[in-house]
């Protein structure tokens, strides 16, 4: 819900800024007096404020105002995404090259056809055509990702667990030795916890219980950070309402 709300109100906030910018960049003879009005700024703030209340009204109970704001957000997001994708991706990379110098850029027809093939997923009869585009995406994506991810996400992390308990880069301090032991015990116990080919009894059971402890600490930390993130969003909204909507000086 926080995501919906924050997006919706920001889009509303951006409207006056974009209009001001468009107006400022227009040549003087093209200035249109009705395009910008200071009232627009306040309308933007009021829309943002009302949408904030609409989204938070869900905390009291689900209601039609919340539903309206939620659907408005989805609609605006999709529209915004389509515009950005068209003007930043499709137009400069496909449309303009093909329509300005076709003979030099005709190679672009191949990726364009792959792209169009994906749209056939909408048809039951011809959805098989989309498999060509999808196959290309999966193949190229996997080819790119597998070596990069193995190196960055597995090998480098394994490497950092192969640390000397004392000495090496970390030095001889008590905390560095303690940290190294915590890492080694954590990695081994969690790996054993997720090793299901042996029954978790006896020594294996004890070690896997240590693994559970590590996992619990991880989940607790993640939850704490999640609380912090969600409250940060509420703080952001309250700062907007108090400062911009109510005109209170904060800090």
């Amino acid at each position: 819900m926080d995501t919906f709300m924050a997006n919706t109100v920001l889009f509303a906030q951006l409207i006056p800024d974009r209009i001001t910018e468009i107006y400022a960049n227009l040549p003087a003879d093209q200035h249109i007096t009705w395009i910008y009005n200071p009232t627009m700024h306040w309308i933007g703030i009021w829309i943002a404020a009302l949408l904030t209340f609409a989204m938070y009204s869900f905390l009291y109970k689900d209601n039609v105002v919340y539903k309206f704001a939620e659907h408005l957000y989805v609609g605006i997001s999709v529209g915004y995404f389509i515009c950005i994708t068209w003007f930043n991706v499709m137009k400069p990379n496909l449309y303009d090259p093909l329509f300005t110098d076709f003979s030099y850029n005709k190679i672009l027809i191949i990726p364009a056809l792959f792209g169009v093939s994906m749209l056939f997923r909408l048809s039951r009869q011809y959805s098989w055509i989309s498999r060509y585009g999808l196959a290309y995406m999966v193949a190229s994506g996997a080819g790119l990702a597998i070596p990069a991810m193995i190196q960055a996400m597995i090998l480098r992390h394994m490497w950092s667990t192969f640390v000397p308990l004392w000495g090496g880069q970390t030095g001889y301090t008590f905390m560095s030795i303690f940290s190294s032991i915590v890492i080694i015990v954590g990695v081994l116990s969690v790996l054993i916890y997720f090793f299901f080919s042996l029954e978790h009894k006896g020594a294996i059971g004890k070690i896997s219980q240590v693994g559970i402890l590590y996992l619990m600490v991880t989940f607790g930390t993640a939850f704490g950070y999640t609380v912090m993130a969600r409250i940060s969003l509420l703080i952001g909204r309250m700062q907007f309402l108090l400062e911009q909507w109510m005109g209170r000086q904060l800090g």
Partner: protein
Amino acid sequence: MSFYDRMMQIDRRWIFLLVLLAVVIPLLKPMGMPIKITPPAQAIFDKVDAIPEGGNILIAMDFDPASKPELYPMTLALLRHCFYKKIKITLLTLWPSGMGLAEKATKTIAEEFGAVSGEDYVFLGYKAGFAIVILTMGESIKNTFPKDANGNSTGEMPIFENVDKLNDYDFMVDLAAGASVEVWIAYGKERYKFPMGAGCTAVSATQYYPYLNTGQLDGMLGGLKGAAEYEKMITDAGYTKQPGAATMGMDAQSIVHLMTVIIVIVTNILFFMQRRIKKEEEV
């Protein structure tokens, strides 16, 4: 119904109201609670501070309005630091919905310092493709982004006189709301070897701590706290006078955290007391 039963069935909307008060009151009446600087945040500040005048930094603003309260103040603080130190900034976003915010942040701080687009900074805009964009930026940024967000040719920009590849940059920071830090590490940092830091939402912070341990990240700013730490560091260093939005929000953040801890402890006590009474009644 016992006292414990009544407390356990309390309407959760009372807790929402308490949270609201715990946020609004400290915003209106700040207490100035101390902000402790953590080593990962200090590391980012030190890295940026060590870049010489005229050096280059790459900032990826991979977030959207949903993360604005956490990452926008972080962006403003980082940009203020860079512009103050006269570091040349290249900015981009790999999130389509991040365009508006990235543009707004860049323009706001550039105007504050009188920075010139194409000379002191450049906003390259959005490009689709994530991994492909990073890989091609490792070969040539000017080829990957022939034009900036305003449609100006990057090939003729003074800012690109000495830099064109990822490893030409003195430092790179990814301000990320999602998993883009991992993509930058896997396809950029590991392949082209450049110093890198990350600013992320609090939700993602636990996910990225291991990358500090492996040395794949040189520093990290996590959530509103990370943003407040950076604001404090640039204020203490005399680069800015005004406290940022993150610093103003930290009192509220701390109060709500304290309240959450108290609520968790109290409800657990109530839960166990209620269970004990029920067991005693059954006996």
